[in-house]
């Protein structure tokens, strides 16, 4: 029984030797990547690799050209450095990493952990003994010291009463909708008020947001429920048109207050001055295939690929 398959997309890239993602507008079921640079040149290297939607993460099959034109089967087992399908419409949190030993009282805060996330990852912290006010909140990793620590670039914990003596984390995928609710780590009591979020916010100048500080333990309750137009942005901060110079200073609750229950300070996008009804509902989810180091080719290799849809034959 034959199975109809349709070519969804084809392309090529020059490899840098590192894993890379190829994005598609729909799910794919079959993928072939061929190394144009090494094909037929007896390189003793993988010259073609294939993926099917039935494969486990990291799995691949392929052809190894070993010399004198000899071809041999090659494969990566599940969990290897082959292909991994990515479907951002069904993202799940990654496994709990429970090896962190401390969060510093510093600006920015630094987490001591032998198992680092990567720069740019969003981590959700748990079991932050001694610093419970940051538990359950998502933070962006802005720097790492491999095997030693990682930095939460948008958290100023220098005013906290004590350092954390334990911290666990999960990497949390966050890309379904651009412009979404973000947690606030500080607001300046100034004119204009500048808000810092725990991760890159992706807001734009002209966006209208509502700021929520519903818990008195955060201090600046005067700003709770106020709408603001954004007048300037950096990756993790935005400047509002609110004069907060007379407001109570913003402060994180203490660890004990957090243990007793709190609602985090947060901001939600509610509109835009220039492009109403656009970005807060922009679903940016993608289907992608991650090419691991076994199949992506060596540095400078030119790789050709073909992606197909259609049920795989059984």
């Amino acid at each position, binding site marked *: *029984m034959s*199975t*109809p398959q349709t070519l969804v997309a084809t392309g090529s890239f020059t490899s840098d030797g590192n894993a890379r993602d190829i994005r598609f507008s*729909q*799910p794919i079921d079959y993928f072939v990547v061929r190394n144009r640079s090494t094909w037929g040149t007896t390189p003793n290297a993988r010259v073609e690799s294939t993926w099917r939607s039935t494969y486990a993460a990291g799995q691949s099959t392929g052809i190894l050209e070993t010399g004198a034109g000899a071809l041999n089967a090659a494969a990566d087992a599940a969990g290897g450095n082959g292909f991994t399908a990515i*479907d951002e*419409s*069904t993202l*799940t*949190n990654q496994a*709990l990493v429970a090896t962190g030993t401390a969060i510093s009282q510093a600006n920015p805060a630094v987490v001591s952990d032998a198992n680092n996330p990567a720069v740019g990852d969003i981590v*959700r912290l*748990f*079991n932050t003994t001694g610093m*419970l006010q940051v*538990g*359950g909140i998502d933070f962006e990793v802005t720097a790492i010291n491999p095997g030693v620590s990682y930095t939460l670039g948008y958290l100023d914990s220098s005013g906290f009463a004590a350092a954390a003596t334990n911290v*666990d984390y*999960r990497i*949390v995928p966050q890309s*379904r*909708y651009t*412009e*979404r*609710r973000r947690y606030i780590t500080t607001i300046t009591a100034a004119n204009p008020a500048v808000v810092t979020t725990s991760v890159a916010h992706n807001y734009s100048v002209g966006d209208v947001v*509502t700021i*929520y500080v*519903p818990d008195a333990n955060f201090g600046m309750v005067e700003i709770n*429920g106020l709408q603001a137009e954004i007048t300037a942005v950096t990756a993790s901060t935005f400047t509002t048109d609110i004069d907060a110079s007379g407001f109570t200073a913003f402060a994180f609750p203490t660890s004990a207050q*957090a*243990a*007793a*229950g*709190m*609602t*985090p300070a*947060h901001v*939600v*996008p*509610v509109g835009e001055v220039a492009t109403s*009804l656009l970005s*807060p*509902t922009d*679903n940016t*989810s993608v289907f992608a295939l991650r090419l691991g180091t076994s199949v992506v080719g060596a540095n400078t290799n030119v790789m050709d690929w073909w992606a197909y849809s259609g*049920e795989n034959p*059984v």
Partner: protein
Amino acid sequence: MKMRQSEHDYSWLRKIMKGIRRVSFAIIILWSVGIYAESNSLVLNEAAARLGQSMRETEDELIRDMLAGTASVINCTNGVNGDNPTEITRADVDNVVATLQNNDADFITNMIGGEDKFGTGPVRDAYFALSDTNMIGQFENVNGFIAKAQYPNQVGVLSSEWGSIGNTRIYVSSRGSVTTNGSLLGADIYNVFIGGQESYAKIEQNGVSARFIYHPPGHGDDPAELRQTAAWRMAQVPRITNDAWIISLRCTLA
């Protein structure tokens, strides 16, 4: 596509549905006339029914995810499970209701007045509370919970409604919103969206409103007239219209 054992065996269809229901805005089913020569109408009917279900579920999930991503939040803090947020309590529900009232949000359903029936009680004017089926036991433990069966009458009551607490009426779905590993202790957070009238909307896009599309054999690249397809397509923008009128009450399990 695999050969079928029986003309009434739709397992292949279910398989395809499972595989493709994650697609947000278009789903297609393809089958061969040669295989289903005697049962095409049955297959088409089944496909149409499942596609209809798929489209509406997808629509609901897109709205759910929009609410989860952009609604303001209030944590349950009055429970005793030691987490943050805690399990849901009456004080937490009343806190959200008071906040919505202070923001001039209108109730969605009217009061159901008391009637002369044993075991029933009046139901207040209410906001809608949309949640996950795993919260059913939590709701039933909240002080003042009234089960749907205890309403004075069932006029206008939906099948997904589970009961009421104070000025909320609760609707549950197995596709409710859950923030996995979101609490202080790493437990799943259940998002209960409590909203008033016109708090959110979906806006259909011109020219690409929801459509069921059927192509008979011979359509497109099918010279032997062996293949037919059925599909749905839609494009819409779900959107909170007034963020002061809907709140995500976040809870963990007791």
